[in-house]
């Protein structure tokens, strides 16, 4: 019996082999089916392995390969935390491969995608498996580059080249931060193995610096505000199944990195770490969803909503840190489990929604919601699963998004026990921010579904849409089923997550499997409990009862007629509410502050024949206040330093000499 970690490494090797196969068969017409079929099979095997080691609690297994640094080798380790994230990665990968079997056949240039797709999957798997700093960073960079190549797949489309460029810059910056973080963690002795880092002592200032660097490094990959700017550019630029992987899975790999370092390697946290993470998480959640609301490009809307969900996950992690620092093991386990649950949920529904957006894109060629509409009649199955995804992501019962959100609120309610006043006051405020984000998310997905799928078609392309292929539908339906199952049977998920919480936090949530009727009880029954299964059963029963009685005893007659609309027959579909008009009230309430939105109405004088005009000014303050000055500063410096390129050899030599002397001086003074 080969150890679990070796199985996973074999799967990664098989994925890399698939990359080679994709390159070799790039001229063949079968290569799309071949590559996605192979990645689908491999991901399923890896998923089964990871799921087995998570649920059967096989314990950690390790493996050292004689590659990488000569005195170190490459360490890989599969423990409960890694197993959980491998489940997330490979489940998303399997769904994306299945979807790709159908979606990929519409691809004009498959050879630009096929070799990188398995490589991207391999990279994500390797990051989770890595057990030393060198391997981790190498795999991280490999994952970034593979995904960059996928973002650039359609590089001739306008904006995609810019998206790729911004992504590359941000990814390099993130890796730099991670490099420094691991450098600090390993110390001067150079103990790059995670085991060595774990056993080393870290001073508080070191720990604070590592936390800040991790927030920069992992946070930029995950999409924490204000490091999120690349995400809404790059995720939608990739083909839809890759967007799903980047949004649903790669951001989770970043969260894995954060958890691994901050919870596992860094030793006991300080409560102020919790404060920082809480603030960042809450702000990210609200700002992310506000951006999503203002967006009319379906895929960019989904990408911004990813930022919101990352904020929710980080908030919950911040709660876990705060509780952990104060020794409240049970509450910390609750918050930590809630964040992992949300990681899983988000990978389900965000992949599902990106697949749906991809289906709309294949069927109509449109991503702009203002040109869609009425697709529920022409794509009934896609619209059904997309609706499931929308309900789930809006945190509405009985679907899965609500359960994780509910668990987070339960964790928030534990905050009065915290001794620090800052936390006592901040946690409920952050709870309010989360509630605001959840309500805005519901508004956002009413808009996303309502404008895209309901109403009347706003363009000929939307009028001529048709249902997508079976593979895509199969992928979407399986994810929708998972959203539903995780929503009505949350106890099973929580129990499956308990070894992770036990390993990372040292405590776990109470066993849920024994509770009556499969309800979930985070602390004790008199405090709070929730039963998704019963809620679903009640709603179904109540609705069926109502339908039965009405159709049996009252009228069941139906007459089709033109829409009433208070007697105004809307002349064209353009007179419907549009995405921009739908969010106008919310823009007026929140946008004046967050986006400095201003509305300008240009009304011609009576008798004047020119048309009235309405214009909305919105500003992306993060770009304008942070990144534009930064890029300007870089340009300025680059201009100044440009002169260094045109010096004589004597000056170069003296410069080198001066640098050497300065460095030696620094070294002498330092030690």
């Amino acid at each position, binding site marked *: 019996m080969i150890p679990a970690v070796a199985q996973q490494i074999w799967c990664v090797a098989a994925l890399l082999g698939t990359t080679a196969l994709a390159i070799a068969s790039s001229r063949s017409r079968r290569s799309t089916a071949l590559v996605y079929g192979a990645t689908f099979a491999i991901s399923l095997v890896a998923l089964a392995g990871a799921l087995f080691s998570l649920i059967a609690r096989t314990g950690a297994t390790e493996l050292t390969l004689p590659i990488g640094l000569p005195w170190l080798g490459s360490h890989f380790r599969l423990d409960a935390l890694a197993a959980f994230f491998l489940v997330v990665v490979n489940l998303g990968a399997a769904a994306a491969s299945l979807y790709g079997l159908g979606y990929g056949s519409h691809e004009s240039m498959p050879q630009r995608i096929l070799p990188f797709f398995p490589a991207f999957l391999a990279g994500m798997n390797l990051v989770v498996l890595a057990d030393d700093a060198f391997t981790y960073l190498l795999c991280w960079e490999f994952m970034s580059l593979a995904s960059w190549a996928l973002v650039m797949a359609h590089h001739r489309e306008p904006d995609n080249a810019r998206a790729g460029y911004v992504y590359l810059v941000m990814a390099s910056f993130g890796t730099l931060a991670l490099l420094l973080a691991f450098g600090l963690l390993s110390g001067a002795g150079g103990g790059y193995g995670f085991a060595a880092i774990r056993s080393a002592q870290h001073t508080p200032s070191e720990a604070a610096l590592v936390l800040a660097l991790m927030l920069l490094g992992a946070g930029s990959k995950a999409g924490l505000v204000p490091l999120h700017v690349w995400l809404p550019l790059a995720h939608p630029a990739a083909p839809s199944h890759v967007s799903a992987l980047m949004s649903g899975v790669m951001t989770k790999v970043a969260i894995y990195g954060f958890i691994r370092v901050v919870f596992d390697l860094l030793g006991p946290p300080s409560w102020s770490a919790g404060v920082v993470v809480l603030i960042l998480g809450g702000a990210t959640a609200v700002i992310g969803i506000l951006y999503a609301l203002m967006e009319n490009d379906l895929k960019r809307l989904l990408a911004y909503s990813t930022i919101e969900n990352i904020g929710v996950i980080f908030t919950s992690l911040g709660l876990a840190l705060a509780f952990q620092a104060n020794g409240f093991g049970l509450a910390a386990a609750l918050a930590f489990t809630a964040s992992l649950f949300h990681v899983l949920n988000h990978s389900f529904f965000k992949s599902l929604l990106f697949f749906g957006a991809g289906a709309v894109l294949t069927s109509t060629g449109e991503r702009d919601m203002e040109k869609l509409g009425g697709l529920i009649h022409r794509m009934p199955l896609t619209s059904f699963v997309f609706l499931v995804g929308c309900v789930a992501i809006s945190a509405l019962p009985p679907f899965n998004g609500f359960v994780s959100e509910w668990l987070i609120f339960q964790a928030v*309610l534990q905050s009065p026990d915290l001794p620090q006043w800052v936390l006592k006051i901040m946690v409920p405020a952050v709870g309010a921010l989360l509630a605001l984000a959840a309500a805005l998310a519901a508004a956002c997905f009413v808009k996303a579904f309502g404008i895209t799928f309901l109403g009347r078609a706003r363009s000929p392309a939307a009028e001529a849409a048709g249902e997508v292929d079976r593979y895509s539908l199969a992928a979407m339906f399986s994810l929708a089923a998972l959203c539903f199952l995780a929503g009505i049977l949350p106890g099973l998920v929580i129990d499956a997550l308990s070894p992770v919480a036990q390993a990372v936090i040292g405590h776990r949530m109470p066993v849920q499997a024994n509770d009556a009727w499969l309800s979930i009880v985070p602390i004790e029954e008199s405090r709070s409990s929730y039963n998704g299964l019963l809620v679903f059963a009640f709603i179904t029963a109540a609705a069926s009862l109502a339908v039965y009685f009405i159709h049996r005893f009252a009228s069941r007659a139906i007459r089709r007629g033109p829409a009433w609309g208070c007697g105004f027959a809307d002349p064209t579909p353009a007179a419907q509410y549009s995405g921009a008009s739908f969010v106008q009230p919310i823009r007026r309430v929140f946008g004046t502050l967050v986006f400095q939105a201003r509305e300008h109405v240009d009304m011609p004088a009576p008798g004047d024949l020119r048309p009235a005009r309405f214009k909305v000014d919105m500003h992306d303050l993060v770009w304008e206040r942070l990144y534009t000055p930064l890029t300007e500063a870089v340009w300025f410096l680059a201009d100044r330093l440009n002169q260094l390129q045109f010096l004589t050899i004597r000056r170069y030599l003296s410069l080198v000499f001066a640098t050497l002397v300065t460095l030696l001086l620094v070294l002498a003074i330092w030690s």
Partner: protein
Amino acid sequence: MVVISDIFVQLGQMALVLLLAPLLTGVVRKIKARLLRRRGPSIFQPYRDLLRLLRKEVVLAENASWLFRVTPYVTFAAIWVAAALVPTFASGLEFNWSADLIAIVALLGSARFFLALAGMDVGTSFGGIGSSREVMIAALAEPAMLLMVFCVALIAGSTQLSTVATFMASSEVGLRVSLGMAMIALIMVALAENARIPVDNPATHLELTMVHEAMILEYSGRHLAMIEFGAFLKLLLYVSLIICVFFPWQITTEGAGPLSYLVSVAAYIFKLAVASLLLAVFETATAKMRVFRVPEFLGAALMLGLLGTLLRFVSRGF
């Protein structure tokens, strides 16, 4: 035996809210009419309206989808389930633990989600305007509601409504500043959520001033009946919630005899009557505000909820 009686209480509760909901609306309308020195329709008029609507055929817009036809039943079911889980006359409901206060708020959120979608389904501008304003109001009301929930849950040590009601009914609670703030916040949220004056006018049929009515403009016949019934139930739910959390006197707790049920049902109906009188007086005395004043109104509710929660932290006594 206990389980059977509990299930009986639960079923009784489900039937009771269904029976009382139209009556509550009828009473409020009657009192409002009397305050305006009109005679007003009978308090049983909502029942007649429902029956009339149920008997009529449905006129469906040509491009209405399946979602449009499913929504009335989904929203009705979600609101009914939520209403059935709020203790009205007895705190020990059999299925109370299946959804706590947060879940009840979210269930109402589900109902609203589908209703807002249905408003956009036919593709008229009235439906869109209603949906867009409804989600704006909801986006502000939900955080306020959750802060109110936090405040109450921190005092009672639970988000389970039956535990909260039992705790509040015990004499040890007394008057607390934070509870008062939470109550005002809840009332403000309830006014907004039920499309009452000053946020929305349930009686208006001037399209541009209405929110809820604009959203359901395309509905007719039994579908409209279901939605109206849902709205009645929602009003009853919020009133019951206020009663159950802040005025749970005479509520039957566990292990009481059959006589106490009679007393508590009578007390509950009396409390409903008082609430409908207060609501009618308030609505008659106030004017509807502009849509863009609503954020300020609900922002005040949010602040009250937050203040109540924070006060709770500052001193255990408050």
